[in-house]
């Protein structure tokens, strides 16, 4: 058994565990911490796949996002969380059916995908995969990349406009 096998199971457990706890916790700060564990474990999974740049971006983006989420959680929600009324039996079964159907769809999807049809790029050592990503993004995928940046810019300007209006 190699170390990566062990680490994979550990990270998988943390990812799923974090998500489950996020749903089950009652207080918003606890939820945010749980989802943070989930995100960081996903970064770990990326490292296992040799995608260090993606892993680091994941941490960089989401740790900031989680901090902000926590701040808003503290500021905008009630501090004393109370138990919701218990769910009815029928709703639980319905949810289970939905989740099971989703699982079947995704599972068959993964099983039926022909992974070998996607060409594997040769010679991508872990030391140069930033360079590879950069070249791909700025040559082959330059238009989607620019569109995404415009989208983000629009969101940014929109947020500023909304914040300004409140001030007046």
């Amino acid at each position, binding site marked *: *058994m*190699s*170390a*990566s096998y*062990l*680490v994979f199971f550990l990270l998988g457990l943390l990812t799923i565990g974090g998500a489950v706890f996020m749903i089950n916790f009652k*207080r918003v*700060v*606890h939820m945010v*911490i749980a989802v*943070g564990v989930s995100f*960081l474990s996903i970064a770990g999974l990326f*490292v*296992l796949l*040799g995608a*260090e*740049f993606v892993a*680091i*971006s994941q*941490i*960089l983006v989401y*740790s*900031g996002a*989680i*901090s*902000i989420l*926590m*701040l808003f959680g*503290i500021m905008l929600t009630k501090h004393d969380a109370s138990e919701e009324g218990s769910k009815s039996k029928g709703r639980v079964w319905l949810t289970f059916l939905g989740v099971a159907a989703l699982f079947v769809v995704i599972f068959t999807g993964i099983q039926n995908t022909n992974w070998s049809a996607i060409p594997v790029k040769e010679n991508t050592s*872990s*030391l*140069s*995969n*930033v360079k590879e990503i950069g070249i791909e993004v700025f040559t082959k995928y330059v238009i989607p990349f620019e569109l995404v940046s415009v989208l983000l810019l629009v969101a940014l300007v929109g947020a500023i406009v909304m914040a300004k209006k409140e001030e007046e």
Partner: protein
Amino acid sequence: MSSWLEQAPSLTNVLHYSLAAVALLLVVLGFVTYAIYFERKVIGWMQLRPGPNRVGPLGLLQTISDVTKLLLKEDTRPKHADKALFTLAPILAYSPAFAVLAVMPFTDTIQFADLGVGVLYYIALSSITVMGVITAGWASNNKYSLIGGMRSAAQMISYEVPLVMSVVGIILMTGSLNLKDIVYAQQDVWNIVPQFLGFIVFLIAAQAELNRSPFDLPEAESELVAGYHVEYSGFRFAMFMLAEYVYMFGMGTLIVVLFLGGWLPIHPSLDFIPPIIWFIIKFMFYVFLQFWLRATMPRFRADQLMGFAWKVLLPVALFNIMLTAFVITYQNGFM
């Protein structure tokens, strides 16, 4: 990194890596102990008083006795604090501080992980600490600690942006995010010369990231008692302090690697001095600068803080990127 993950996790392997980590931890703890001592001494001298001089010869054992006191103290927790998060917060704040040291190339040979994205690794992991700080502020169930935590989060997140942007110039010049490659690219001239603007922005933003003077607002004792760690005492408080000083160690290392040529000597003729000594000398300069600033600078006002990051540092950093990009394109003969 992936090569050792693929090995079988044999006992010797695990032992080997654990021992190496423990050795680094001991070095860091030694540094922190004497950094605190020298900080108090240097600030004392600058303010014309002797500083600690009672415990041991020249007061050399002062910090050790302080730490012993902290560790032996009763572990108190406020009654209405959130039990689990109160315990988790110091760990969340400290562990990334130590983890960032893994990629630091102290010399050519002394490095734990030669990561392709070393620069980003440092910045990404250090942002996890913000989570620890907010958690501490919230879990203590105290208004001062909550305000301190909020301030700290706003400050650290804002100053992270110019910090990253000021490094981009170096990355453009080197063409790599690997810390070792960045040092090798400084054989002829250190990055501080062509990237002086970036260096200034980095230095200021780093100061804010470290929560040190003149940006020590999160623990402005006159307004907030002690900031996010008001309710902490004993070894949990010690962990927050430790995180702060370990970050100083990490930031010093990073600044030496990025701007001051890492382990390279000032002039090639001086390379008979071992690289680690060069590294330590440069590192000491940075640490001394920290103490000097702390002894001389007044604290920023909270309302000036954010404006300075977004309106001054960020545009300067962006200008630096543009300038570097133009010069590099010109040198490559595209213009």
